């Protein structure tokens, strides 16, 4: 069943109401679940587009739910977490979540995330039909056959590692990738020194790609967590 709706999993009533109201204003459809077991039932039976999952649920651990859902579906999951520790966010992302939002958050932030996720969904749907030989995101283009990247049709000189990183981010567009994940994907290990190298590489990569648009970059940095490539509006 194709329903254009968002599943909200949040046990705190006030916050839940806040989210629901925000979504309503933007004319999104939504279902709400109050705890983990309810969420799983909803997820399996109703097949939502996006799941907004609070990590601090009373009955089941948020990470568990992510793992369970990822067992059968690639539905985008945005986790809601308290701001203090990074560890729970990293664990959630590594378990399969796509993005996160920290409490306290503003509704603007939340809606921006949702919009970006929908863009990604659309993009993924459209590219499923085509042969994936190239990637486009706003003014950024990656030609997989030529193994080159272009910004505004200008060829960008990238080192092999930078290219790899760019492709990794592109293939996971809209998802926040943790440092550990990226390091493992690129080098096969997650040594402390490699993580440091990663940062340098990403920094240089961003200089090359995001030189002009600082306010709306392609690659966003999530301090302490990782990086993400945003799907920009056309």
């Amino acid at each position: 069943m194709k329903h254009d709706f968002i599943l909200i999993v949040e046990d705190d009533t006030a916050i839940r109401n806040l989210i629901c109201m925000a979504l309503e204003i933007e004319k999104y459809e939504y279902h709400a679940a109050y705890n983990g077991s309810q969420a799983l039932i909803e997820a399996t039976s109703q097949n939502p587009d996006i799941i907004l999952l609070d990590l601090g649920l009373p009955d089941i651990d948020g990470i568990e739910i992510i793992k369970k859902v990822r067992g059968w579906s690639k539905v985008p999951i945005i986790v809601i977490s308290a701001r203090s520790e990074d560890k729970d966010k990293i664990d959630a992302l590594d378990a399969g979540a796509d993005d996160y939002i920290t409490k306290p958050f503003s509704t603007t932030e939340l809606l921006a995330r949702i919009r970006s996720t929908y863009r990604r969904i659309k993009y993924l749907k459209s590219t499923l039909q085509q042969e994936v030989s190239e990637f486009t995101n706003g003014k950024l283009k990656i030609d997989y056959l030529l193994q080159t990247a272009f910004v505004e049709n200008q060829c960008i000189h990238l080192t092999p590692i930078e290219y790899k990183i760019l492709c990794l981010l592109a293939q996971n567009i809209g998802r926040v990738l943790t440092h550990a994940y990226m390091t493992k994907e690129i080098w096969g290990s997650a040594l402390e020194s490699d993580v440091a190298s990663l940062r340098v590489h990403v920094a240089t990569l961003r200089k090359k790609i995001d030189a002009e648009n600082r306010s709306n970059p392609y690659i966003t940095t999530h301090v302490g967590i990782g990086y993400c490539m945003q799907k920009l509006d056309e």
Partner: protein
Amino acid sequence: MPGSDISIFELFGILKKGYERDIMEEFRPNPNELLSQIKEKEEEKKRKRGMLKIFFGYSAGVGKTYDMLKSAHEIKDEGKDVVCGYIEPHTRPATMELVNGLEMIPVKEKEYHGITLKEMDLDAVLKRKPQLVLVDEYAHTNLEGSRHQKRYQDVEEILNAGIDVYTTVNVQHLESLCDIVASITGIVVKERIPDSSFDHADEVKLVDIEPKELLQRLKDGKVYRKLQVKKALDNFFTEEKLTALREIALRRTADRVNITSEKAKRRNKSEYFTEEKILIGLSSSPSNPKIIRAGARMAMAFEGEFIALFVETSSYDNINEKDKKRLKDNMRLAEKLGAKIETVKGDDIAFVIAEYAKISGISKIVVGRSNTRRGFFSKASFTERLIVIAPNLEIYVIPDSNLEKINQKVWNDKHQMKDKIWVTWKDLIFIAILLAVSTIISFLFYDMKFSEVNIITTYILFVMISGILTEGILSSLILAVLSVACFNYFFTAPRFSFLTYNTGYPVTFVITFFAAFFSSSLAQKLKKQSKEIAKVAYRSKVMFDTNQLLQAEKDIDRIGQIVAKQFVKILNRDIIFYGAKDGKLKEPDISFYGSDEKKSVYEKESEKAVANWVFLNNNRAGATTDTLGSAACYYLAIRSLEEVYGVIGIGIDAQEGLEAYENNLIFAVLTETAAYMEKETFRMREQKTAEQVNSEKLRANLLRSISHDLRTPLTSICGNADMMLQTQLDEETKKKICGEIYDDGMWLINLVENLLSVTRIEDKTMNIRLQIELLEDIITEAMSHISRRRENYHIVIEMEDEMQMVLCDSRLIIQVFINLIENALKYTPPGTDIKIKTKKQKEWVVVEVSDNGVGISDESKPYIFDMFYTANEKIVDSKRSLGMGLALCKSIIHAHGGKIRVKDNMPKGAVFEFTLQSQEVKIRET
């Protein structure tokens, strides 16, 4: 609270702890409460000691064990846990029947000369830990190899473990009554207990029956088996003897009540004894114990102080081992009977004692009858001399026992000769030389035609020299004889013969002889005395040094080591020091006198076990004591009142024993050591308490500040929201109010973030996770959390190297940036330029957050990083600030190993500068 010294960590830790504590509603440390707690603990300790009940009888067979067992059954029926520790296997059937029904702790069996003997298993009793244990035969002597020499010491240990004890003892076993009983029964009982063990019992029950009845029982075979009965009847069990014994027992029981109540009264009033002071003289004589006991009884009867004085003469070093041992035994006996042992040096015993008596205010002195005999050389007897020198002294003469009379005589005669007479080869050679020299000189004089007077005086002179320079009188006496012989042979008419014509020469001879004798003995005495003085001076110096050293020390272990080293100097023995920590002994620290050959012996587990026993039981043990006497060292507890701070072990042979003065010295030093240790312990406790009190104060302050700073924005939020609900407002106002609510919310979020950052502190160390981060990322992230106010300011970021990497905890450093920037926004007017600059300096990155606002005054500069300091002294609502922001920045930067400071900006404004560790990254290209 400006200028507070506590770091922000401690503060929050305090807050957290205090919060938890409040939840659990624990008390706040209050000095009076603490004191009463300590007192309670002490009393509990005393109460925790078991109760001792003695079943006391005047003879075997009166029914003590029977009575004890009956009482035990009654107690058991009440529901208490009663076991038998040791019941003497009576052949009295009635008694043995009662043993059934009570749990018996299996006895230890020991092989002794082919016979299997049974002993109470002390450790088993302690392990079993009943409420009450029955131990028969209180005065029993344990077999060799037992922990204690006597059973009453075992009982002491059981009592200390909190177990009640019932025991039995006969009147003849009491130390002070031993002589009286002996005089009645004709038997001197060897197994004795000190009177204190009897008097300090919690309950004494006199088991009494008419002597006639006892005799009847005996005849009926209820006491001993029929075969032994006749023998017992003849020797011991006559009616008069039994009656006399019974009387003594009755009286003693009554006295006991008197003694303990009087002592208790006196202790409370903190008066000491009455005017009576009883003195006895200690010696190595075998009849001395009788005098000691008499003195003890007298002291008890007169309720006076009991002092035992030993006069150390110059011949003390020369007395043989047997005598020395006897002296030590006598000293120990006196101590057991409650005497204070004093040692005085001197040669004229009577004089010394009399003087001491006069000075110390002795009222009565007890001497033995043998002292009334006149010595070989003295004109008056010892007693008579005492009377002359101290006429106000009451002298009690105690008859010496008949059995020991013969020994006494022998002993006395032997000791008339005070100095040991001996010659060494060295002396002989020496006098030979002297003789030769004097003869040569005399020949010279003879040739020079000097008169004979000169010659004989020369000889006399040399004799006197020999007296001074040789050891022992005999050599100079020999020289005297030889000198006279030479004089006679060489210089008197007829020359070269031993005949003399002049009748005056025998006189000369005698005079020379006496000259030799007197000068020699005088010289001897002087030598000895100067040696003694030197020794005493040395000891005093060491004592003084010890004192000085101890005063300077603060560390308890160091104190112990110093004392050990000093002891080595004083006692000339190996010393082992065990420090204590957390109620347990630490590893030993050995100071050797001489070689360390005995190291392995001292480190044996058995030795440590003895030391541990001393520590736990607060009592002496080891060599030369009755407890664990086979150890290699003599162990003493360093204690003050009831607290044991450590154990000192003195390497000593069991046969040797310590001198009286050594004992006194040890005692004095240890008491002082304990006092120092106690002082240290109390000082530390006091410090801790002070810290606690301090934290309480700070916690209260922190809470006050925080609650104020939380209430203000919350008031605004609620107020605004409320207004929006109640009144109809226009869009413009609504937007403004919502903006304010938002701002207040953001402010609260930042405050909470700051507080949460502080919670990442445990026990004064910050729990930071350092990672390599891109500095630019951090600044960007920080900027995204800055409040809306920033729109009215120009904020510029200038990074020397945009790729600068730093090693830090990203969350915390973001917080630092936020705090510094928010501060700049708060304290400067809108439109101010705020600049964030970074540049690398060696292995550090210097970050500057500067503004060109009003700047910070020089008076404030030293305090602004302190807790709770705000630019205004009062907590003013508008300038909303906890004063925590900068203090937190300081703590975070310091935890990162960096530095933070403030300086003036040119031409105006303030610059906050801090450093972070720069990080070079080895970029992996492949």
